């Protein structure tokens, strides 16, 4: 078990560990990438798709998905944070060397070992690339274990696309086929213009051998699911990461319930087959 996670069993499951910001990199107008170090070589040991509770004492705590893969989180890990509420706004005011609280990792991540030998189709929308990046990096670091890898990534406008330099590096490596799109173009954008669903007709798949992983804003899921199911990908092969308002991360505060399921415990990573019977999931 993760040493950070074990610390929760000590005095209090609500007690954060004090971590240090090693680096802050602005990505877009609203998003920043933080590199964070845990104390005394404490390990995070997370799964891609898990999240941590990030505290700014006096302001509050917010659940943030881990944005770096387990393979690239020895000693420190990355969080991509959008400025959206009071806690994330406070986080955006922090700099290198500042402290913050970390609890976790929480939830069930993506079952990477089950994806071995398959073709992988990643379809993030907007900020959805932040948690998915943890999985993409993990998979790229064991590239030989997987088949074709495709990335279909859409955002509202070009200035909102995340990790463009890393995506370019992935493209150059030849390890992933990349298709980008934006809902609205901007001056200088020569790529595809259209919602993310317009990318699906461009790709041919062996549906039974494909694992699709999609993460994005709540409104996006229904449409992407139609495309994926339309291509014949089995329901158990489609994975999503669902967000909810999480206040404890340990299945107690009740905010993240979808029907009888606690998103922070059984998710946030779910297969479509798991959540299809849950009326409140999508």
């Amino acid at each position: 078990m993760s040493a950070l996670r074990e610390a929760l069993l000590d005095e209090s499951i609500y007690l954060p560990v004090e971590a240090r910001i090693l680096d802050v990199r602005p990505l877009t107008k609203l998003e920043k990438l933080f590199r964070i170090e845990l104390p005394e070589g404490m390990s995070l040991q997370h799964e891609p798709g898990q999240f941590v509770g990030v505290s700014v004492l006096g302001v509050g705590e917010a659940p943030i998905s881990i944005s770096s893969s387990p393979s690239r989180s020895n000693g420190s890990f990355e969080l991509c944070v959008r400025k959206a509420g009071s806690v994330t706004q406070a986080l955006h005011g922090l700099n290198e060397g500042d402290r913050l609280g970390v609890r976790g990792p929480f939830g069930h991540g993506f079952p990477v070992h089950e994806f071995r030998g398959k073709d992988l189709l990643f379809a993030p929308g907007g900020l959805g690339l932040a948690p998915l990046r943890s999985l993409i990096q993990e998979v790229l670091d064991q590239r030989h274990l997987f088949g074709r890898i495709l990335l279909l990534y859409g955002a509202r406008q070009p200035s909102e696309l995340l990790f463009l330099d890393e995506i370019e590096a992935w493209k150059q490596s030849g390890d992933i086929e990349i298709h980008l799109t934006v809902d609205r173009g901007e001056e200088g954008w020569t790529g595809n213009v259209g919602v993310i669903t317009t990318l699906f007709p461009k790709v041919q798949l062996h549906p039974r051998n494909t694992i699709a992983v999609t993460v994005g804003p709540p409104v996006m899921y229904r449409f992407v699911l139609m495309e994926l199911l339309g291509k014949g990908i089995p329901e158990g092969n489609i994975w999503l990461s669902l967000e909810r308002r999480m206040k404890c991360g340990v299945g107690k505060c009740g905010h993240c319930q979808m029907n009888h399921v606690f998103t922070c415990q059984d998710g946030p990573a779910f297969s479509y087959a798991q959540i299809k019977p849950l009326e409140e999931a999508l």
Partner: protein
Amino acid sequence: MSFQILPKARVEEWIDELRSRHRVVAPTRVDGSYVFAETRPGQSIPLDYPTSLLPPKRVILPPREELLRFQDGNIEAQVEEASIILLGVHTCDLHAMALLDRVYGEGVPDQHYRARRSGTTVVSIECLRPCTEHAFCKSMGTLTLPEAFDLHLTDLGDDYAVDVGSEKGAALMEGFAGTRPAVSRDYDRLDHAMSDKWSRFPYRLDFDVSELPSLLASSYRSELWEKLGERCLSCSSCTMVCPTCTCFDVQDEVEFNLRDGVRRRLWDSCQIGMFAAVAGGHNFRAQRSARVRHRFLRKGKYQREAYGLTGCVGCGRCASACLVHITPVDTFNALYRKRLEAQAGPEEVRA
């Protein structure tokens, strides 16, 4: 099963003795209602009270509770040990506490709850008559004592039968010489009291409680939820008075120096509009009908399926508290009637 007999004349003495070792929290009459509050010497305790406004959960799960305190850059968890006797808890509320113990004790155990809970001993009391018109404990199966209890009293007239269910319960009788062992005549009196009381309680659900989870499952798309949603005010009175509601919010409060402060947890409610809203602006349960439906499904189905213990204990507090008179009995019975009508078809219902 063996038990002790405690004469009513000696009860005050016994409680005084307990008060020397613990805080004794019992029903107290306040403005025509009953609340669980700490008792003082000489204060009479109405053990035959009907029901309390707030359930005893407020003793083990306070409405406001400090989780962490941070000062000068140091954070400390605030875990409070307790030494409390919760006196006069009805069997419905005892069933509810068993569920709270599972929620907070299982999975990742909540140290704050556990510290307070392990220091709390519960003296429950048998209900011999219905507390209010709203209670439906008999239908929900909570009129009888649950498996786990500390000390249980049954009123036999001039005295109480005292049943010891645990070591914690036994410890309450140590150092007190006012009880005598029960003899065969006492067994007869207890038997009589128990069989006598049963018929005084009505069944208020039109179906067996074991059917409730499947009834709720098949009623997910019922139009009843819309109708209830139109009446509901989202005031959250129901969740506040519910003995098995445990949802909480976590909030930080900071001092003027912007450095020191506390992190608290506070009771929250799935009935409040923003309960399922996220920072991006999306609300996963925006409609009142969805929130009302969630509450009834959680109490009648989800909690039972997750923990094997009933979510709704039939205490009737939410029915009393609801400003627009939405009650579980009316709701469950209405769903049952609608399902019968749907299954029968129009002609047979009219016949």
